[in-house]
């Protein structure tokens, strides 16, 4: 059953400067969420300035022409709102959740920083230190982070997905103010942005305010082409990390198609079959039956360019990683050799559909879903027929995609071995 367009009366507008606007009114609670999705992430970087997209996300909160340093969040919180942002390989998203009557202020704050962000040496110096702390927290002192970083560098040779979103430490230390200014001019123009507003507001008045505030911002130059070439993988690749952890771990990545490829939806279903819920195949086999792992988890997200289908095994202390790997290969082999039984296929479809619905419960969830569909699939409308597209997959479809994805020569394996690095 598709989602009903009647439940999503989205208004679509575009300004002459290229800004895309999506408005969805919902007066059930006196709140709004505003998202700005910029089509810039770590894939738009180059060696030497890796991490600049993420560092720049931090810089966006440090003042602009009308609202000086510290003012963005101070004004927002004083009006009953909060803000946050995230950077991925493909995009940077900024959002505010706020009391509905704060909408004029929130639009003014956002338009002001898009029009006239202040980038000075002092704030760059401070923000650089904050980002370095974030890197120490998420990567240098975190097993998942350090393994994920190693997997990217192993699986990609040429594509910018090779480096971590947060960037290499030496690059974070050397990004200059001029680099930031150039980045802002190139990637933060209205023609590279989709705005999504969901909540308790009057659409005509909101659109008038948006036109007035954002209309004068000039569009930017055409965006530089991203070097998306990546040679085909011709054999299994391996990397090892030694770290004083309590237990070994294994992270495996298989190259996957880009988010617009229909096979990505099949991989969503395979993800559910393998690791969503306690009855998923990997959990059942590796966690409950064989007791090899504390957790077995798949992560797969749509990307603009061909990405990775990742499988993380957190091993029980003392378990030989080779043993856990062999069990994993056996489970993946089963997906390739035998069609998923009807019961498991339905289970996977129901889990994916329910996840989609649950993600639409909140204003923030709806705004995020609409924006993500716009950026990744080209239109928010793609969301409406997603349930039907998932429902149409057969067990044979999933088997075909499994065979294509999980071939032995396509494995990228990072192993964490407990212990110190000598010296």
């Amino acid at each position, binding site marked *: 059953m598709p989602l009903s367009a009647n439940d999503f009366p989205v208004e679509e507008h575009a300004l002459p400067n290229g800004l895309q606007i999506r408005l969805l009114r919902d007066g059930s609670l006196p709140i709004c969420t505003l998202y700005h999705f910029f089509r810039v992430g770590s894939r738009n970087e180059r060696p030497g300035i890796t991490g600049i997209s993420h560092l720049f996300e931090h810089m966006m909160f440090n003042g602009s022409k009308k609202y000086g340093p510290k003012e963005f969040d101070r004004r927002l919180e004083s009006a009953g709102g909060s803000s946050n942002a995230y950077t991925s390989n493909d995009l940077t998203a900024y959002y505010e959740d706020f009391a509905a009557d704060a909408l004029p202020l929130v639009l003014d704050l956002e338009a002001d920083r898009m029009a006239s962000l202040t980038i000075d040496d002092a704030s760059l110096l401070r923000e650089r230190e*904050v980002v370095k702390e974030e890197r120490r927290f998420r990567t240098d002192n975190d097993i998942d982070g350090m393994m994920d970083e190693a997997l990217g560098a192993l699986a990609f040779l040429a594509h910018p997905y090779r480096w971590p979103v947060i960037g290499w430490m030496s690059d974070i230390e050397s990004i200059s103010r001029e680099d930031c200014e150039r980045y802002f001019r190139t990637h933060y123009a209205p023609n590279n942005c989709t705005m999504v507003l969901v909540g308790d507001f009057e659409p005509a008045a909101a659109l008038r305010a948006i036109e007035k505030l954002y209309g004068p911002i000039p569009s930017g130059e055409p965006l530089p082409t991203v070097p998306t070439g990546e040679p085909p993988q011709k054999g299994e690749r391996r990397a090892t990390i030694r770290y004083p952890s309590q237990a070994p771990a294994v992270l495996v990545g298989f190259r996957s198609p880009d988010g617009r490829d229909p096979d990505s939806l099949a991989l969503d279903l395979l993800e559910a079959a393998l690791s969503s819920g306690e009855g998923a195949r990997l959990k059942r086999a590796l966690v409950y039956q064989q007791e090899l792992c504390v957790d077995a988890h798949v992560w797969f997200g749509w990307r603009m360019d061909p990405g990775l289908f990742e499988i993380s095994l957190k091993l029980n202390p003392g378990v030989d990683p080779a043993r856990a790997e062999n069990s994993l290969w056996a489970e993946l082999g089963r997906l390739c050799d035998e069609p998923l039984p009807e019961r498991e296929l339905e289970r996977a479809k129901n889990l994916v559909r329910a996840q989609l619905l649950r993600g639409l419960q909140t204003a923030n969830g709806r705004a995020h879903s609409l924006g993500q569909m716009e950026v990744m699939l080209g239109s928010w409308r793609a969301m409406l027929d997603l349930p039907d597209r998932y429902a149409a997959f057969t067990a044979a479809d999933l088997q075909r995609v499994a065979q294509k994805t999980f071939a032995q020569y396509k494995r990228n394996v990072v192993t964490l071995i407990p212990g110190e690095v000598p010296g």
Partner: protein
Amino acid sequence: MNSDVALPPLAIDKLPSGLTLLAVQKRGLPLFHARLSLPAGAAEDPRGKAGLAQFTVDLLRRGTRRRPAQDVDDLIESMGAQLSAEVSMEEAALALTVPSELAERALDALLEVALLPSFEENEVASARRRTVAALQSDLDEPASVAGRAVVTLGYGPGHPYAHPAHGFRRDVETFRREDALGFHATRYQQAGALLAVVGQSPPPELLEFARKKLAQWQPSWPGVSQRLPLPFGALAPSPQMRAVVVHKPDATQAQVRIVSPGLPRTTPRYAEAVVANTALGGGFTSLLVDAIRVDRGLSYSVASRLHMDRRAGLSVFSSFTKNETLRELVDVALDLMTRYAKTGPAEDALEKARRYLAGLFPLGLESHEALAEQIADALLDGLGLDHLSKYRSRILAVTAEQARSIAAEISPARDGALLVVVGDAEVARKALTGLCPIDVRHLEEFA
């Protein structure tokens, strides 16, 4: 923003058994949510059995008297649902969300799991091994270790809240089938329980549906059991500040917590406590965020939090920084929070905190899950619906004098505060020299 937020249509019924029924109508998405709260929280863990409440909840889905574990998983997940099983200090809560048309199947599944666990010997043994392995793995997460140290040391020996819900490895290793059976028989009681259902139907219909379903399951509840009152005494801070350093080899960053006794969620001064804490260390423009992150770039994350449970609470400062700036971060935080305890917030910070909390409050009522949890907790805490329906006006009415007078009670930096550092012990010991007595502990102690 100045008006209170109306709760959605709802109905409440208290059954003779002592179980509370809550029905909430939520229009929009065709979803149904059920949440069963039981008076079986971690505070009920017997002495020497820390983690038993969590262990019991984890075992519920590992087989019922009607079907083995795998079939329980299939029963729940074939509906597209994932069963949430959580333990707070006071309650165990089971919850799931399904498409509306599966409401009856979902509620039956929830009650079967809650009331008919089989606790098969092999599943108990397997769960014990899994839990022990997970507790050891958790030592790789410095923030998790810090959290475990905060509750254990912050509440102190003998306090019912003085252990993490997942318990300690040394206790979990002793768990036997009889422990889980006994805990289930005596704590999974209707008196003090609450069943919440949230769906598209009007509340009387939802209530009737839940009432009928409970009547069908009535014979499956454990018999009535009396329990002894828990020994809740006032928290006694130590006479002077002390530091506990948990040694994590090779850490290049130190996790920092500063802990003092706090307030329970049932305090009549809830609104002023929350406002005063928000000005100090909530949101993104608090005094602590300004001083530590924005002005000095010392950390990515900094906050003060009120760990409020029903019968006790802690005030906790939380941050992390590279080894080289550990002392600077601790000094800045202690200085700022000590001054704040005396002065409270300035007028503009107070106004910002009030409006921030009031404006964002409806976000906590958006999803089916959040509605059920918020209303259930307010009822179980004995705070009533006013706790939510009058939240905004109470927050906006907090005066400068009230905020000032409570600042000393919610600031984590007070005489006798506890400093917890998880990081390289040698680095931390050098950094903290001269500040207060330092006690270095092994990581394993908190497994």
